[in-house]
């Protein structure tokens, strides 16, 4: 490829103009363009089938259109998402488009532009007189998209899309003004690490810059928190933004080596990032003498092998060096002596993704968003029992209540909110009374939770908090590297005690053990995995102690979730004669027909999966769940033909 000449900014202007033309040609294309969200989540929801559906329908109807794959908008509840750019219409966003809907869209809309299918429409991406726009929805109105601005709108595999949207402009400016200027901007912006701890990125960079050795910059994409997936989305949906951030960081610390560390469970992210690196190299945005500035940088991609603890900096470095991913005691800090003994900076995907915007708009702009001590935005993956799950980017400082109720539509099915689990396995469970807590690094710490990587699980009245604590402890215990005594054995005891409580075998004095072991593990562990692992235990004990007591003293699970303490039965009053809906769905054939041709559950066979609850037609709604199991009323159930040998015995 022929490279432009001149200063970095001039060279980038040439690249940007060429990219702009290419994208504009696409926008002005006389054939309609269909954009399908094809990040991992979109694919799981069937995006590839949707594409096949479009292809088939286009061919069958003789319609010409171009299908393009884009990233993820973060509106996971509406997947698969499709944007249609039809000449004469604004770009229109559709939700839940399967192959069937794809066929309808082709026949009714794409064929002749007659019917834009309002029934599947979310809204127009641009203001328009005839269509609702996305800003008409609270979800879009209250969000502040800085890092995720382009996600789902651009083709992540086409660098021109990113360039046309102003991409790499920050890099060109940084190259002209020099690494120290970039460092000062980021420092002045007080960009705090988005990986969880919130340490200011600029300060960290400064430490590395002061060590006179080859410096290393690593982008930490080992997102392992169960329930968090924004790093994956950013890597998959806007890889060039992360890459630009990484190059800027490299420039700021004067790095000679740069790496992406991406977890093995994200194969698509690895693939897309490798393509992005190749495309950037081709345009001299990477490699030797970047944009004629004299700065040279190569970027590699290293795949993690599946170990949560490798998100911890020293463990990540061990793993990169070809060792067991075990954390090391600090000091020395990686910023002073990390990979191969070289000063090493490790920044989270979100942190690096924020850098280009700060450089483009200046640190004052960044301070206008968020709070004084936590400027900028936070990205949360809101999942669980919420109406509109997905990725949400909000300014720091909004309250949890605003995030859950206003932006994400509140709890699903009108149920009552019980708790919000924030910060992943190292975070805490906050009760409804703390919903007014502001979301920023310091306020969350104060109430015993943490920002973590931004996982947010909404729990309703059907979620048992003891079980939640057991789940998280089980996770961290399974991911403990086994090096230090407290984390290896301490978390094991925590898990065993919690397990015994959830199956109704807990002892009251063990609550004290839970507290003592938890505080010891926090104080005594070697690395931050151990130091935060007991947080879910301590917060649930603090805010939901009554649930622990109910399990231990009454053998009752208030949420009716712990299976050993719960039973299902069918209310014969509500059950409809002759209906077989539940029978077909039961995986263990535990449901039998009673003498009056209604249904009942054989408690011996029942595994309490709850499938019959969903199978039972809502107009009957006859399946009941009780805890403790002794509460099942005696309805005098007789199996059909019980006199002449029941069905069960055959």
């Amino acid at each position: 490829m022929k490279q432009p000449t001149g200063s970095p900014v001039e060279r980038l202007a040439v690249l940007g103009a060429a990219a702009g033309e290419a994208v504009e040609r696409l926008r002005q294309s006389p054939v309609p363009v269909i954009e399908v969200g094809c990040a991992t989540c979109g694919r799981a929801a069937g995006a590839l089938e949707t594409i096949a559906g479009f292809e088939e329908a286009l061919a069958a109807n003789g319609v010409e259109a171009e299908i393009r794959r884009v990233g993820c908008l973060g509106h996971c509840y509406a997947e698969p998402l499709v944007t249609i750019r039809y000449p004469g219409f604004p770009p229109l966003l559709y939700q839940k488009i399967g192959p069937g809907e794809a066929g309808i869209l082709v026949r009714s809309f794409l064929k002749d532009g007659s019917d834009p299918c309002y029934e599947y429409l979310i809204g127009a991406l641009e203001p328009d007189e005839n269509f609702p726009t996305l800003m008409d929805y609270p979800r879009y109105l209250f969000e502040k998209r800085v890092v995720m601005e382009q996600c789902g709108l651009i083709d992540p595999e086409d660098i021109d899309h990113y360039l046309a949207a102003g991409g790499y402009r920050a890099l060109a400016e940084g190259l002209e003004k020099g690494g120290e200027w970039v460092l000062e901007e980021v420092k002045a912006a007080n960009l705090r690490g988005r990986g969880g701890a919130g340490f200011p990125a600029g300060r960290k960079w400064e430490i590395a810059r002061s060590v006179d050795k080859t410096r290393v910059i690593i982008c930490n994409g080992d997102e392992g928190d169960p329930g968090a997936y924004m790093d994956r989305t950013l890597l998959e949906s806007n890889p060039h933004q992360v890459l630009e951030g990484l190059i800027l960081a490299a420039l700021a610390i004067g790095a000679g080596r740069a790496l992406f560390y991406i977890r093995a469970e994200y194969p698509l992210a690895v693939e897309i990032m490798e393509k992005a690196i190749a495309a950037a190299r081709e345009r001299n945005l990477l490699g030797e003498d970047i944009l004629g500035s004299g700065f040279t940088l190569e970027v590699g991609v290293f795949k993690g092998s599946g170990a949560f603890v490798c998100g911890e900096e020293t463990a990540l470095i061990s793993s990169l060096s070809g060792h067991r991913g075990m954390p090391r005691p600090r000091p020395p800090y990686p910023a002073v002596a990390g990979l191969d003994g070289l000063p090493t900076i490790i920044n989270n995907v979100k942190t690096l993704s924020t850098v280009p915007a700060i450089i483009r708009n200046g640190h004052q702009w960044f301070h206008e968003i968020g709070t004084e001590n936590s400027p900028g935005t936070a990205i949360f993956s809101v999942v669980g029992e919420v109406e509109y799950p997905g990725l949400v980017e909000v300014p720091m400082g909004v309250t949890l209540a605003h995030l859950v109720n206003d932006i994400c539509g509140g709890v699903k099915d009108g149920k009552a909110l019980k708790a919000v689990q924030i910060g992943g396995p190292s975070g805490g469970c906050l009760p409804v009374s703390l919903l007014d807590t502001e979301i920023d690094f310091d306020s969350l710490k104060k109430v015993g939770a943490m920002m973590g990587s931004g996982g947010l699980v909404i729990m309703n009245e059907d979620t048992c908090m003891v079980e939640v604590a057991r789940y998280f402890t089980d996770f961290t215990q399974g991911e403990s590297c086994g090096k230090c005594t407290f984390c290896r054995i301490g978390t094991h005891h925590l898990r065993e005690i919690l397990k015994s409580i959830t199956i109704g075998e807990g002892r009251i004095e063990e609550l004290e053990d839970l507290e003592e072991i938890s505080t010891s593990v926090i104080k005594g562990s070697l690395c931050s995995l151990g130091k935060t692992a007991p947080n879910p235990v301590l917060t649930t004990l603090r805010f939901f102690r009554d649930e622990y007591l109910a399990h231990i003293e009454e053998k009752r699970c208030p949420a009716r979730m712990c299976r050993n303490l719960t039973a299902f039965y069918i209310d014969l009053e509500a059950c409809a004669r002759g209906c077989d809906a539940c029978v077909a769905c039961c995986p263990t054939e535990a449901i039998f027909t009673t003498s009056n041709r209604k249904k009942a559950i054989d408690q011996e066979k029942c595994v309490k999966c709850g499938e019959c609850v969903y199978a039972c037609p809502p107009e009957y709604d006859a399946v009941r769940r009780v805890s403790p199991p002794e509460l099942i009323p005696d309805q005098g159930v007789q199996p059909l033909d019980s006199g002449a040998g029941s069905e069960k015995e055959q």
Partner: protein
Amino acid sequence: MSEKIVTITVDGKKITAPEGAWLLPVCLEHDIYIPSLCWLKEMDDPPASCRLCLVEIEGLPEPVASCRCPVREGMVVRTNSDEILKLRQVAFRLLVSTNDGHCNTCIANRSCELQQIAKFLHQPLRTKRLRHIDRDYPEIIDDHPVLMYEPKKCVLCGRCVYVCSQNERGYKLDFAKRGMDTIISFYGSDIDPAAKECADCLACTEICPVGALSSKEKWRRFIAEVRLKQEQKKQKPS
């Protein structure tokens, strides 16, 4: 390490040491005992994994492992505060909760460092407070031609892995698996000709604080002795 000599205060006692030396050996030299399992004097880079040597340092928010805390001028250290004692006790209880506790038939009985630390911390060797964790491993792993390993005695201090790595010859011991399943592994020693050379070294068996690693030959002799004693005991009363 610099030549500079600094003065620090440990439990109210002023002592001098070269600046930057690790705190744990400095204390030991001055007769201030701090328990530890994973630390060895010759280590440049102590793993700080057993967490028994935690101490309090004035001005630091959290306890630190003294085995890799460099000595600085004017440092004020406490090795016996209530909090430190409690932490050590919990760490010790956790360690012994995974131990099979069969001291009478253990090759390390009376020379076991766990027994010594128990005495120092006034803790029983079988904890009643916590449930016993029976790790899912056989009593004995002996797929090495020369060595044998008792995983239910092992405290995973890693000293054996360290001394083995300092030695050129023989099969190289290493940790395997993760978390509670972590063990010292002989994997591949059956297809590694170097494993036979271990008979000339046995450094790992000598360094093990709890007798979890032994040479097969020595172990056989020990077991024969134990059996003999048991039989003699049986015969006596009759």
